[in-house]
């Protein structure tokens, strides 16, 4: 949405589409990826996307509930993902105006910082609860997640794109 680039007018978002995308993200998170350490957090990515695009619809409450579901599903400490996702949603909403100003790869850089921050908070919580630090490879997954940002924004915005109708008879 930069000043020099043309911008497409999007259709209003459907709530059912947001719910579907969150369900799909949870599903992708529960898939047992083979190098489990490298699997990006799809829920965090989707949440960041909707917090940036629709900060009035998706907020901290949604983030917190998604976090609780992730906690129960992954067997982590109850409240760990809830805390991380709330902080992530807050940061994404605060930065949403700024992020949308950049091109897709510029947005991905911002998202990388957000996801790294979220992973850092999760690590702090677990270290405080007495776990060992599992190594710096921990921060590979957020970077991979940020690299998926262009794909995510293409997929998640797809239903809102209006098909371009070329009307030859229109005077203007």
């Amino acid at each position, binding site marked *: 949405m930069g000043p020099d680039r043309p911008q497409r007018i999007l259709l209003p978002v459907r709530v059912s589409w947001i719910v579907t995308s969150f*369900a799909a993200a*949870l*599903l*992708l*998170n*529960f*898939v*047992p990826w083979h190098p*489990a*350490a490298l*699997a990006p957090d799809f829920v965090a990515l989707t949440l960041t996307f909707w917090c940036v695009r629709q900060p*009035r619809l998706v*907020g*901290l*409450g949604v*983030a*917190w509930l998604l*976090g*609780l*579901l992730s*906690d*129960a*599903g*992954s*067997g*982590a*400490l*109850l*409240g*760990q993902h*809830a*805390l991380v996702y*709330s*902080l992530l949603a*807050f940061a994404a*909403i*605060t930065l949403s105006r700024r992020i949308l100003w950049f091109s897709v790869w510029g947005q991905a850089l911002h998202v990388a910082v957000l996801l790294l921050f979220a992973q850092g908070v999760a690590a702090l*919580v*677990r270290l405080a*609860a*007495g*776990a*060992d630090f*599992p*190594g710096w490879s*921990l921060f590979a997954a957020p970077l991979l997640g940020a690299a998926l940002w262009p794909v995510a924004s293409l997929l998640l915005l797809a239903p809102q794109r209006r098909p371009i109708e070329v009307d030859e008879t229109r005077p203007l």
Partner: protein
Amino acid sequence: MEHSPPPFFKRGPAPLVRLAFFASLSLALLVLDARFRYAEGLRQALALAAQPLQALAVLPGSVVDRIAGYFSSQVQLRDENAGLRRQLVDASQSVQRLQAALADAEQLRRLAGVAERYRNRGIPAEILYDARDPYARKVIIGRGTQHGVRAGSAVVDEIGVVGQVTRTHAGAAEVTLLTDKDQAIPVQVQRNGLRAVAYGGGLSGLLELRYMAANAEIEAGDRLVTSGLDGLYPPGLRVATVVRVERDAANSFARILCQPAAGVERGRFVLVLNAEAPQTPYPEEAGAQRERDPRGGKPRRAHRKAADGA
């Protein structure tokens, strides 16, 4: 008369207030879960909600496995079959020996007047996937409470102990591996019967015997088996082999590292062994039961009546 301007844009409480609310709620849950384990009910309810999604997520992997299994080559199958047949002969010999030994042991136990342990069969289970939590060593198995799996049961493979069931759902259970940092198992040195507790070493994939005196009689190569003292793990299961003993004059404890015997971080099929004997009640509970006994209550009531009359 004071009045505030009419709210044009109703947007609820300020974002920072909301953040503080949800963050403190999460922190409270964290403390409840990590320190007091009070949040299990909530966790069970949430896990039930996440269950259909999880079942759906595991589906593609199992379908791929099934297709790959269908197309696995015949040579491979024949080799595997021959190998398994050889193992079966070995195993049946040792089963016969074991049965004879068990009969002997039972007779001796009867002679000695020790209560007979009742044995039950294990529940075979398949490891579905590693739990998605880089900070812990846990796996999810495809058997749950509806198949009779109970929290606290030992989980073994064909060699030795793999871990312990720490959480159960309806159709799945979470097994904490021996190498998890918070996992401990009571063991015994097979050579001389020395008892110890083995703690998980976390990332190293090893076990550690803590609080063993620096002059404890233990050396590299010693085999460790479960001692069975906790009433959860059956005695005599292989656990680990000692790989290194460091005795330092500066410390009063030796540093003893052990390599787990079973395929703790690999392998696919495991057996869940539910605890053998019901636990004996704690002394206080037994005392409370005796007090509730009607015969025990009578004399006191009589005494009180006598006191009222006087």
